[in-house]
């Protein structure tokens, strides 16, 4: 199960980072590892755009198939996070999950 979540996805299943409707940044992630790294790199506008649309948890549950991580991310939404604070919280949550999964393999 853990290795399934940690697998590398084909290009068409990747997460594509946008800053608004139809505006693609050129950044994408094809695995949980890459997704974690990109959370630290993409601009704040992109993080806020996807976070408040629920795009992150949708991709995490539907593509990565990690219900637990999706739930952790969903719970963050109630805190009204923006900017750097959002980046830090997202990165902490996702990287913690990534480290847990890799340590269990």
């Amino acid at each position, binding site marked *: 199960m853990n290795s399934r979540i940690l697998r590398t996805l084909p*290009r068409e299943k990747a997460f594509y980072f946008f800053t608004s409707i139809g505006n693609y940044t050129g950044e994408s992630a094809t695995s949980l590892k890459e997704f974690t790294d990109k959370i630290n790199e993409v601009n704040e506008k992109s993080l806020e755009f996807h976070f408040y649309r629920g795009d992150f948890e949708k991709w995490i549950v539907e593509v990565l198939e990690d219900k637990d991580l999706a739930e952790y991310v969903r719970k963050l939404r109630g805190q009204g996070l923006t900017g750097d604070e959002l980046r830090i919280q997202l990165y902490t949550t996702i990287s913690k999950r990534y480290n847990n999964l890799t340590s269990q393999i």
Partner: protein
Amino acid sequence: MKFKNNTVTLDVIDLKILEALQEDARQTYTAIGKSLGIAHSTVYDRIKRMERHKIIKKYTAIINAEKAGAKNITAIMTVFTDPKESEKVAEKLCKAPQILEVYTSLSEELLIIAKVVAENQESLHTFIANSVAPLSGVLRIRTSMVTKKFKETQFSITNNPKKLTFIKETYNKIGEDRH
């Protein structure tokens, strides 16, 4: 209509016939002939020749989408591409029914400009995220939503004011010579 080195040169009467057809493609050969002062058989022959040589590509209806009940949104999508993959990206975009027009353009970078329609902003985003961003060679995408349409027309020989003046002047001269 004249042929030279496999290229077709249209004369003033051909251009006038095209202008008439672009105004109303359903008018009869007789009506066109009458308005131009030439025989309907001449109109027929010239139209058939222009159809054969694909100068007239097709006859179509221009639909008023709003009146037909379509509540679509239109967007202009600029796709920045890797120059090596640009042609392939453009060809793939052409296959999507949501995309009405596709052009390549060279400014500081190689771009593809496409006109896209969608039911709403969400379906536009889903289409771009699922079908355009994943294409190999796409570097980034900028999309602008159309908020108001001021003009939309097809290319017409009358779009070229110089040519139109030339046609009118020459045609009037022919008319004067006839009388």
